[in-house]
């Protein structure tokens, strides 16, 4: 498996569709313990990437990812904007170095993206944020790749890791982001950013296993 811009564009379409499908799930979470704009923010980001299709087609993957990062940075805003932008910047930088020519390289690039996101948000696992999905997914992706599992098996592992990570946010007290103000009252709700990440990751995994186009 090689990461190509063509795939990135297909992934963007899948993500866009999945976000719209899961609007009710995502929106309600940021309303419960945030400020209700997370769904709209993520959708604005997905729309932006989809609209870049012509501009990106034919570019090397790292350049495409970089352009996406810059676009997201000026499109999403809020907490999600700099975080997702940092993710794509980190991933682009890593792909540029390692080429993204096999599954492990892609997994490592994903992890590099997550690392950039962590740096920007000064966050860590257990704070009831998107990191509770992204970090276990990054680990699982790398471990499953090292074990040389099939792409299908890797995707299954990743989807499970994302779901487990998401579920873990329910009982956490938020200590980062807007929900941190709620203290104990944040318990019992899933995190909106974790949910949107899980939805996006699931969409991309489904695309890998069973391409729609």
């Amino acid at each position, binding site marked *: 498996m090689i990461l190509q811009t063509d795939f990135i564009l297909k992934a963007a379409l899948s993500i866009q569709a999945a976000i719209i499908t899961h609007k009710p799930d995502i929106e309600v979470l940021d309303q419960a313990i945030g400020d209700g704009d997370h769904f*709209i923010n993520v959708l604005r980001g997905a729309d932006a990437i989809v609209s870049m299709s012509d501009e990106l087609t034919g570019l090397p993957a790292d350049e495409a990812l970089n352009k996406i990062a810059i676009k997201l940075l000026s499109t999403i805003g809020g907490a999600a904007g*700099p975080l997702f932008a940092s993710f794509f910047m980190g991933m682009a930088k890593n792909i540029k170095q390692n080429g993204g020519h096999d599954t492990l390289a892609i997994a490592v690039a994903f992890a590099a993206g997550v690392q950039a996101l962590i740096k920007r948000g000064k966050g860590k696992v257990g704070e009831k944020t998107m990191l509770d999905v992204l970090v276990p997914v990054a680990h699982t992706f790398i471990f499953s790749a090292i074990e040389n599992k099939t792409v299908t098996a890797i995707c299954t592992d990743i989807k499970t890791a994302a779901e487990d990570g998401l579920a873990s946010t329910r009982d956490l007290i938020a200590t980062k982001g807007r929900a941190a*103000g709620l203290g104990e009252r944040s318990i019992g709700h899933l995190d909106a950013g974790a949910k949107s990440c899980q939805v996006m990751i699931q969409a991309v995994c489904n695309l890998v296993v069973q391409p729609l186009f």
Partner: protein
Amino acid sequence: MLTESLSGFQKAHADLVSLHFMPNYLTRKQKAVNKVAIISGGGAGHEPLHAGFIGKGMLDAACPGQVFTSPTPDQMIAAAEAVHADKGVLLIVKNYAGDVMNFEMAAEMLPFENATVLTSDDCAVINSTFTDGRRGVAGTVIVEKCVGSIAETGADLASCKALGDKINAQTASIGVAFTSCTVPAAGKPTFEISAFDIEMGVGIHGEPGRKRETMREADAIIQEMITAILTDLGDRTKDAEVLLLVNGLGATPLMELYLIFNTAEKCLQEQGITVARSLVGNYTTAIDMAGASITVCVLDQEIKTHWDSPVHTPALRWGV
């Protein structure tokens, strides 16, 4: 909708502000020279914050985001390029993860000397090392007014930042909501609340506060808010003169704001605190939320001077 609202704002205040699209930012009509450029910004939905405070004696530029969503770094960079006047750029940022990160990225990319004042006056959430810290709410208006004033005197970047940080340190706010706000894109209220409950410590994005309580006598609610503020400000308030700001969150009748002011002033007086300056109105709103926030800023001669100095903006004007 945001675009049209910004256009309407600019047209209604064409003598004071200019508007630029893609990226979106607003500046003073007349570029100021020989002063630190003061820039603020934040999600839409808090009007008149921040664009309503552009003008002589206050901001040089403001960057509006989407509703309740921080603006993006390209906006701050373009705004800074438009208004910087070789004495550096001061960014005034409300302390929210999103705003902080976007302004931080802008600051990293800015080709000018710059500094940031983070406002974090909301004492509803008890500060702790485990969180991002307190939120910036209506106290931001006081910071913007006074920092804007000192900048106008030709003060350097460090002095501007120092005054902003000082005011933020001696300012505390707390809000209470009776109804939710509705983010237009979501189309339904952010939270459900019965007519008999209040949300004590609500944030200006409608984030839930420290607790949901049963509605009580207005006086008891206000007393609780003042107590939270004074506890937070601690010894600073002893025999102090303060600025008392009663801020409407959007749908609260002015009549009620004055009622709150009346009780809050009484509570402060009972503690030997003198309300030497006051401001009552809708200055930092949460779209259409019914509710109000109370802000107390401990004054000294420097802050008083800069609060009183002339200001000429769409939403705050005196002495000119």
